[in-house]
């Protein structure tokens, strides 16, 4: 119902109000109808009764006339009386009238002679009686006259002697007592009253006025006693129109009185009915609303995250709704649990994930703090996992991770194992009194990985490196512990794979320093703090300058020169090496253009930079921007570029060769020194590592190696450069062995660009002392 009722808070109230309201409207309509019919019935019966009463009254009126007239006639016809009248014997007449009055029970009786003489008392009318009596015409015996607001009835009897010589007249005042007497004659409680005709012709009793046109039928009037039914009976005057009328009225309230019990009964029955309806609809509505209320409450509980079910009690729509709701609730709960599980577990291994791990570590730390215990955090990853993924494919990698997870769980003996991401796992070792348990567990993990894993038909030998941090010694918070375990892991990997390391404070300092360097390096790149220094590469005679090797220098504004070995690894780790390398390439080419044309510039390229996507275009841009001839640029790479696979590297090398850029293999003799590289690509130069050069003068084996390298290079038609030449002995030996170019402090330290330019201008190396 779209009535703008105040919105009901409950379905039950709504239903109750609706039904009770409808029934009440019906009831009220019935009551109104009953009232109307009762009133109509009362009116019609009152009207009937009044009309009947009026006709009864008419008869009574006539009866009274007859009785009075008869009584008067007896006297009027008495011979003696007539004789007395004829002889005007007043005393006799008066006494006869007195006895007549008493006999008839009438207040006044008079004799009016034809001559107008009045004998006897006529009461209030007095002498006027003569005129009134004389005016009564014809055979009529009866008339009502109004005089001075009083009304009198006159009933006459002629005195015949034998012609009429006078009339006996009874005078009956139609006053209040007469009216009360009249009222008593009726069966119903009527009120009788006299009306007098006013000058305007209307009827009036001093309070109520009726129009002259009031007919003989029943009308409604308002009286002091309330609304009444009324009927007006004009009373014949001696002659002319009636001067007075009788008003019979019947109060409506009295008429309704006999219906009062019916009305009370109806109201009582109606009220009882209404109470029953309200109670009944209330119960019905509750019956309908109860399961919905239960559903409502259950839905609310579900909303708040509780598990909520409602009892199914019926087979109807509500019952089906309840069943659906229960199914829905069950599904929601199940999915919620699944989502929670997924949120805290790794989908691949079903181990706890990083988030779960951190929570658990928090709890373990809190507990340890309370119980004054220690907690160990083991961070581990798989050695060479990336290459396994690359060579055997991701499905095998994933399967491997699952196997690893199983093994770790077996080994962990109840300690919590989590996968932090990729091939990174972590274990929380709580309730440990000392480092022992963590150490034993780390060792057990390493041992278990010493056996190869069978994964999808592949036998994979994998190792693991582990970093360990302890609460409270290495950190008071979960995040710090994890970070430190990670640092320890880093260190373990740096120290060679397949072992474990405990965290030490120095690791943290080193890491901090690395972070500082990273931050400062970014600033240095932006503000141009980096510089290039150039160390001449000279011909074997030690004098003619063939080229310069560009060396990166970082004069830190606060900490002085920072050696490349310190910041280059940081640059490589953070990827800044690409930016740095690009700058170096451009700067070296630019400076080289200021030199004579036979002087080359050698630029070191880190493996990361070399393998980066845009390396080729960096070289091309540096050349085209500076205008340097490609064959004057020599790129120095180390063997480690081949570690990550040969194919891509060869592509880049051939691209450089196609440009005309020279390529030198740096630090030859250290590391892997696989001769196959020399076969797969025709390097332009091999640089002999300083570790051989240092001892070449006094160590026969070193000299032999140098000799072998030089011979090899000569055979492959490659140049050689010996690095780190520091004294004349070394120079002599290298020169003897046929090394094509030399580099070292013996000839010159690295110079800044200006000094290098001056040196090349003098076209001769000024030997260090």
């Amino acid at each position: 119902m779209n009535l703008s009722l105040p919105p009901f808070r409950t379905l039950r109230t709504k239903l109750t109000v609706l039904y009770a309201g409808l029934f009440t409207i019906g009831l009220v309509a019935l009551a109104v109808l009953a009232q109307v019919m009762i009133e109509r019935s009362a009116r019609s019966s009152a009207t009937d009764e009044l009309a009947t009463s009026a006709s009864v009254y008419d008869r009574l009126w006539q009866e009274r006339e007859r009785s009075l007239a008869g009584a008067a006639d007896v006297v009027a016809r008495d011979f003696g009386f007539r004789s007395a009248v004829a002889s005007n014997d007043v005393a006799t007449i008066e006494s006869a009238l007195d006895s007549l009055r008493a006999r008839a029970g009438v207040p006044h009786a008079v004799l009016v002679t034809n001559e107008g003489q009045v004998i006897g008392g006529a009461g209030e009318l007095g002498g006027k009686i003569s005129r009134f009596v004389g005016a009564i015409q014809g055979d009529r015996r009866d008339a009502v006259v109004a005089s001075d607001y009083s009304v009198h009835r006159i009933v006459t009897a002629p005195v015949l002697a034998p012609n009429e010589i006078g009339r006996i007249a009874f005078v009956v005042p139609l006053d209040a007592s007469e009216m009360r007497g009249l009222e008593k004659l009726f069966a119903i409680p009527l009120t009788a009253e006299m009306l007098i005709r006013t000058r305007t012709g209307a009827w009036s009793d001093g309070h109520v006025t009726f129009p002259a046109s009031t007919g003989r039928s029943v009308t409604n009037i308002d009286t002091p006693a309330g609304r009444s039914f009324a009927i007006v009976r004009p009373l014949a005057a001696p002659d002319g129109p009636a001067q007075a009328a009788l008003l019979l009225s019947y109060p409506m309230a009295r008429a309704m009185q006999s219906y009062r019990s019916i009305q009370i009964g109806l109201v009582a029955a109606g009220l009882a009915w209404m109470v029953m309806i309200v109670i009944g609809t209330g119960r019905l509505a509750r019956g309908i609303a109860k399961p919905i209320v239960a559903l409502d409450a259950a839905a609310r509980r579900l909303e708040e995250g509780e598990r909520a079910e409602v009892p199914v009690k019926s087979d109807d729509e509500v019952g089906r709704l309840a069943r659906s709701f229960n199914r829905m609730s069950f599904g929601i709960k199940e999915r919620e649990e699944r989502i929670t599980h997924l949120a805290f577990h790794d989908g691949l291994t079903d181990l706890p994930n990083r988030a779960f791990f951190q929570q658990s570590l928090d709890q373990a730390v809190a507990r340890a703090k309370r119980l004054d215990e220690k907690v160990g955090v083991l961070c581990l990853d798989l050695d060479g996992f990336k290459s396994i993924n690359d060579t055997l494919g991701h499905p095998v990698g994933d399967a491997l991770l699952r196997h690893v997870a199983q093994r770790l769980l077996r080994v962990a003996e109840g300690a919590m194992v989590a996968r932090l991401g990729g091939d990174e796992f972590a274990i929380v070792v709580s309730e440990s009194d000392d480092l022992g348990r963590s150490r034993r567990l780390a060792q057990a993990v390493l041992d278990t990985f010493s056996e190869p894993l069978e994964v999808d038909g592949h036998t994979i030998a994998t190792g693991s490196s582990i970093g360990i941090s302890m609460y409270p010694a290495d950190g008071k918070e979960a995040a710090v512990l994890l970070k430190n375990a990670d640092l320890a892991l880093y260190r373990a990997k740096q120290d060679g794979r397949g072992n474990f390391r405990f965290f030490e404070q120095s690791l943290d300092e080193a890491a901090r320093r690395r972070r500082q360097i990273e931050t400062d390096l970014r600033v240095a790149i932006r503000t141009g703090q980096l510089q290039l220094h150039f160390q001449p590469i000279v011909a074997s005679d030690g004098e003619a300058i063939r080229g310069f090797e560009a060396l990166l220098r970082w004069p830190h504004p606060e900490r002085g020169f920072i050696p490349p070995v310190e910041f280059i690894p940081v640059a490589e780790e953070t990827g800044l090496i690409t930016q740095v390398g690009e700058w170096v390439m451009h700067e070296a080419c630019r400076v080289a253009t200021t030199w004579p044309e036979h002087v080359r510039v050698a630029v070191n390229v880190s493996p990361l930079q070399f393998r980066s996507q845009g390396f080729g275009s960096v070289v091309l841009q540096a050349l085209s921007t500076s205008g340097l001839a490609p064959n004057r640029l020599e790129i120095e790479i180390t063997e480690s570029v081949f570690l990550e696979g040969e194919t891509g590297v060869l592509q880049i090398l051939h691209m450089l060769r196609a440009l005309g850029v020279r390529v030198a293999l740096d630090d030859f003799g250290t590391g892997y020194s696989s001769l196959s590289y020399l076969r797969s690509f025709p390097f332009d130069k091999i640089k002999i590592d300083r570790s051989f050069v240092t001892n070449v003068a006094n160590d026969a084996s070193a000299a032999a190696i140098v000799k072998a390298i030089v011979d090899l290079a000569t055979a492959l038609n490659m140049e050689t450069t010996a690095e780190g030449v520091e004294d004349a002995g070394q120079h002599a030996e290298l020169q003897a062995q046929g090394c094509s170019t030399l580099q070292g402090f013996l000839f010159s330290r690295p110079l800044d660009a200006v000094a290098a330019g001056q040196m090349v201008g003098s076209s001769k190396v000024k030997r260090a002392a």
Partner: protein
Amino acid sequence: MPIATAAAAAPVTIQVIGPDGRPLAGAVVTVTMLGTPPPAPRGSYSVAQRNIQFDPQVLIVPVGATVSFPNFDKVRHHVYSFSKPKKFELKLFGRDESRTITFDKPGAVMLGCNIHDSMNGVVYVTASPYTALTDANGRVRMNVAAGGGRVAVWHPSIRSANNTLEQPAPIAATGLNTTLQLRR
């Protein structure tokens, strides 16, 4: 029943019209001329009672006349009069009994029977020779010597003293022909 006089002269015709506009029968019309002597009683007068009625109902007699009241009915009558000119009472007399009354004063003597209310009659005692009863057309015809006289009409329905209306009646030599209209 006109009473003839010696000196018949001018013819007088008077018609009496009642208040209802119709000719009034049974009214007594008297013309009085000054100097005219009253008539003398002649012969016998009687008002019989027959079929419980007076017969005649109106009897005009001169002053001094004696009227007999013979009863021809099987029942007895009690004839009376309360009229001023002659009050009398003839108590219960039976069939074939007769009583006589002498009327010595002029005027209408209303007759009644104390037993039978319906019996009404009148003995009109007149002092004028010119007295007559109107016929069915309300007319009287008589011969009256010319001169200034008065005419009086008596009828029980006339509501004035003695039930009589009186007015001057100049009678010319050629007589009088007039109509008297009675008013209520």
